[in-house]
């Protein structure tokens, strides 16, 4: 009998909840309508289903349904928010502030803005992964139109001080956008409460299907507008043209409804399992370090570096049985390790030695027990093979060695 794969890569994507899949199925064949078809029942049914989903999403984050724009995913939502604000508010200014640990969808959209004549400030983070509020406030100029700071980091799970950032943005009359992909549906997220005006997230990280995302755009005080990045039929109040992915949106809505009901219980259970996993590994493996703040952190994530072991090689010891991610980028041509971990001040060696464990709704205690055992065995095996572990054990100062670059 083949063993079930232990899936601890929920920050990459979550399995679709079977209850979500069930609600989607009728919208493939029985109800095939286009939500924009206003002249027949098939269109009305589709439109009604989309309206329901919009309400379910709005209900989860405590906003008006009219403030939700459906997209293809968080990457598109990030692009629409950043480039859309840059174009819409060009007369007001051209400066955007973000952070070095943001997701590539935000960083690369900002890079594009720079090419389009904008200016971008990239705030550094401290060793906990948190931005400095003083540095944020100091970076705001009369040309600043947008601050884009993620709610929770995908690699470390570190949660930024959203409310305080929102206060600073409000004080200076600057729009506040957040990529909340890793937070929505996992912890309470209320953009209006913290002063977020635009918020991007996606269905497939909260047990919904892939290929559908959302952008919250604040409607009143202030009324925020973004220039569309996809032109066509004028869907989504002109901000995002393109036929709506009705089954996907229905599933996204159901995922939001389930999250609203179950998120608190899930979070409490996963925090316990995560703590057990982290403690179980740290207790048996010396020279292990947790990356990022443990105080301001998502309940289901831990990112640990196992010194003198390379993450990708380590994963190969158990990747037939356990799925997770490493900050090592040994497969990339650049050989650059995780820029997020490097931004926290980790040396490249520790960044290469990291594993990200992200638990989810379907993670069991047995999964955690098996993971502790297999990862610990893997680290010990790899350390037996590691020349730098041997040197470390012999008291050799590894930093004093002149390594040959390659």
């Amino acid at each position, binding site marked *: 009998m083949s063993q079930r794969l232990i899936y601890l890569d929920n920050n990459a994507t979550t399995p679709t909840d079977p209850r979500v899949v069930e609600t989607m199925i009728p919208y493939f064949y029985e109800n095939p309508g286009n939500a924009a078809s206003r002249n027949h029942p098939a269109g009305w049914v589709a439109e009604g289903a989309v309206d329901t989903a919009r309400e379910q999403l709005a209900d989860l984050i405590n906003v008006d349904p009219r403030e939700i724009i459906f997209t293809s995913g968080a990457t598109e939502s990030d692009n629409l928010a950043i480039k859309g604000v840059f174009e819409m508010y060009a007369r007001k200014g051209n400066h955007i502030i973000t952070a070095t640990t943001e997701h590539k969808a935000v960083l690369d959209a900002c890079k594009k803005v720079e090419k389009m004549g904008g200016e971008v400030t990239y705030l550094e983070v401290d060793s906990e992964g948190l931005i400095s509020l003083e540095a944020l406030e100091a970076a705001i100029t009369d040309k600043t139109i947008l601050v884009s700071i993620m709610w929770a980091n995908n690699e470390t799970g570190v949660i930024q001080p959203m409310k305080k950032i929102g206060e600073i943005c409000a004080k200076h009359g600057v729009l506040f956008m957040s990529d909340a992909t890793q937070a929505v549906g996992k912890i309470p997220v209320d953009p209006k409460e913290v002063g977020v005006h635009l918020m991007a997230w996606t269905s497939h990280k909260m047990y919904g299907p892939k290929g559908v995302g959302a952008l919250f755009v604040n409607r009143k005080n202030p009324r925020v507008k973004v220039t569309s990045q996809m032109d066509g039929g004028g869907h989504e109040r002109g901000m995002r043209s393109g036929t709506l992915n009705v089954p996907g949106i229905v599933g996204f809505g159901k995922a939001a409804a389930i999250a609203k009901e179950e998120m608190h219980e899930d979070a409490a259970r996963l925090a316990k399992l995560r703590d057990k996993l982290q403690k179980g590994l740290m207790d048996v493996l010396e020279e292990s370090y947790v990356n990022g703040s443990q105080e301001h952190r998502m309940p289901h994530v831990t990112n640990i570096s196992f010194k*003198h*072991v*390379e993450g*990708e*090689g380590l994963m*190969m010891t158990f990747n037939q049985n356990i799925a997770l991610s490493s900050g*090592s*980028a*040994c*497969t*990339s*041509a650049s*050989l650059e*390790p995780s820029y997020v971990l490097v931004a926290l001040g980790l*040396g*490249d*060696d520790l960044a*290469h030695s990291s594993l990200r464990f992200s638990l989810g709704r379907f993670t069991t205690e047995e999964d955690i027990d098996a993971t502790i055992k297999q990862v610990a065995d893997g680290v010990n095996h*790899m350390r*037996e*093979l*590691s*020349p*730098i*572990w*041997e040197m470390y054990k012999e008291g050799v100062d*590894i930093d004093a*060695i002149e*390594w*040959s*670059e*390659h």
Partner: protein
Amino acid sequence: MAYSEKLLDHFKNPRNVGTLDKENAGVGTGLVGAPECGDVMRLQIQVDPDTQKITDAKFKTFGCGSAIASSSLATEWLKGKSVDEALAIDNMAIVEELALPPVKIHCSVLAEDAIKSAIKDYQEKNGMEVTAVLEPH
């Protein structure tokens, strides 16, 4: 990424893991790579002074599966070879044997460097003409 059976075998059952006494005159040690790059290989050879043949080879590697398999394979190939024969080992032979994907070719380059570096160390230690040339990458 799917790896070849041979690579997985060398990764799971690495040959010749260990340490030779680097103070021994017959031992050459090569230490290449850098922790910052995510790869460090230490490869050692034991040379018989009479025959100039490599009688033993050991390695330890910090790195990904391909780096570990490349160095394991290198030690296997080194045993029984003369120093001159060992110098002729080309990284592309390792690429072929383990079916390394393009993004992992640098692991085979590192293994070739480790071999040359170990031979260079042995030759320098024994006042011989250094015939091992490490090419800059």
